[in-house]
């Protein structure tokens, strides 16, 4: 057989491509459930990390079920909604931020409880300098002071914007509050890196050299939390 004939070359290429394509399609389909499970467990780990609960992938599901006692969905107006067949956990805020208008997005809220003490966890989505950023911010039972945060990013600059996923930056939010003493909403602002923010409960020092990413974090927190304000206020009164 002459392997250098044109017809042979065409036939060989066609068969090769078909064989390779079907092998890959088969592999991708059969591994998909495991990959989805990994993404889900990572999300659980991130949610728990915002309330400083460390969990390995193996124990993520168990701890999530134990500590997250309630999942709530809010509309953009801050009203509790309950769409059929959807829990707060199913909502992909990063995807909705990219594809849906603000009024059509869902706003999940996770209620964490450990030893009678409640924390409220809000997922965040926004944009940094190069691509999407996201995270979780957890509030104490008073729905005012920040208990913990976790942020992550896809493509921020290493050493600069990418530092938002480090503890040094995330811990700066702890103890800040979102309501002024008058009771009005006063968002947490991320200000220029190196600023003196001690004593101001509504400002956080940004990352020097990572200004746009820092601002993105601030914008993401302000915009998202504004939606939760009516719900928080209503429940603060109820708990008083």
């Amino acid at each position, binding site marked *: 057989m002459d*392997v*250098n004939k044109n017809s*042979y*070359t065409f036939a*060989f*290429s066609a068969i*090769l*491509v078909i064989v*390779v394509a079907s*092998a*890959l399609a088969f*592999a*991708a389909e059969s*591994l998909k459930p*495991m*990959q989805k499970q*990994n*993404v889900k*467990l*990572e999300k659980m780990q991130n949610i728990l990390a915002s309330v400083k609960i460390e969990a390995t*992938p193996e124990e993520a599901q168990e701890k999530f079920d134990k500590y997250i006692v309630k999942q709530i969905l809010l509309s953009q107006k801050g009203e509790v909604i309950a769409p059929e067949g959807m829990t707060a956990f199913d909502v992909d805020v990063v995807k909705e931020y990219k594809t849906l208008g603000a009024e059509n997005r869902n706003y999940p809220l996770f209620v964490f409880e450990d030893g009678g003490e409640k924390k409220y966890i809000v997922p965040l989505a926004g944009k940094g300098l190069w691509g999407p950023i996201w995270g979780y911010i957890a509030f104490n039972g008073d729905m005012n002071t920040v208990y913990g945060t976790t942020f992550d990013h896809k493509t921020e600059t290493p050493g600069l914007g990418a530092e938002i996923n480090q503890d040094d930056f995330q811990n700066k939010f702890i103890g800040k509050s979102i309501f002024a003493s008058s009771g009005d909403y006063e968002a947490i602002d991320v200000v220029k890196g190196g600023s003196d923010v001690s004593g101001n409960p509504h400002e956080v020092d940004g990352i020097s050299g990572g200004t746009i990413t820092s601002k993105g974090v601030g914008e993401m927190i302000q915009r998202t939390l504004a939606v939760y304000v009516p719900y928080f206020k209503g429940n603060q009164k109820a708990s008083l």
Partner: protein
Amino acid sequence: MSEVAEAAEAVKEPKEPLFSKKNKKLLTDPLNDDNPITIQVLGICSALAITVQVKQAFVMALSVLVVMIGANLIVSWMRNLIPSRVRIIVQLVIVAALVILVDQVLKAFVYDVSKQLSVFVGLIITNCIIMGRLEAFALGNKAWPSFLDAIGNAAGYGWILIAVAVVRELFGSGKLWGYQVVPDAFYEFGYFNNGLMILPPMALITVGIIIWIQRAKNTKLIEEH
């Protein structure tokens, strides 16, 4: 004509043992005398990018090993069927398919590592070592020597990668495989992790030092001018 047949006979005649001297050389040469990174200077890109931590380097080396064995075997088996005009693209398709497969498997079983390696697994496709071995060796040799050649070259690539990663992780973050090895007492005496080690330039310098040491020890590598 008869000469060619005779020559073919002569090659075929003595049944080679699995680990003949020639075959052993296929395994051991790439580790030192013909190392893909330090001698052929191939695969430098990934050697710079994913040697910050030993674990990543290890998984990368393992991935390259798997892809290389697979590609070398498949190409060697098909070497008489591949039309020479499209052989490069055929090699590329085979390598790319194997890499995607490895990527999918990593995502399913070691998700956290696959996230750290991110694009670099995909970049195995462009790793010159793999294409180089396919073109230079697997296309012209039987499956068994190709298999050994793949292991040898992947190991030669892997040990350099891991050696660089050990140096970078140890001095850059005071850890090995993610575990703290530099005791806290050192830091109290004013020891600092070398931040430069984390950055790509130090990988280049580390590879350079390895080449230096290697040439100093192995005198047949020194070129005369």
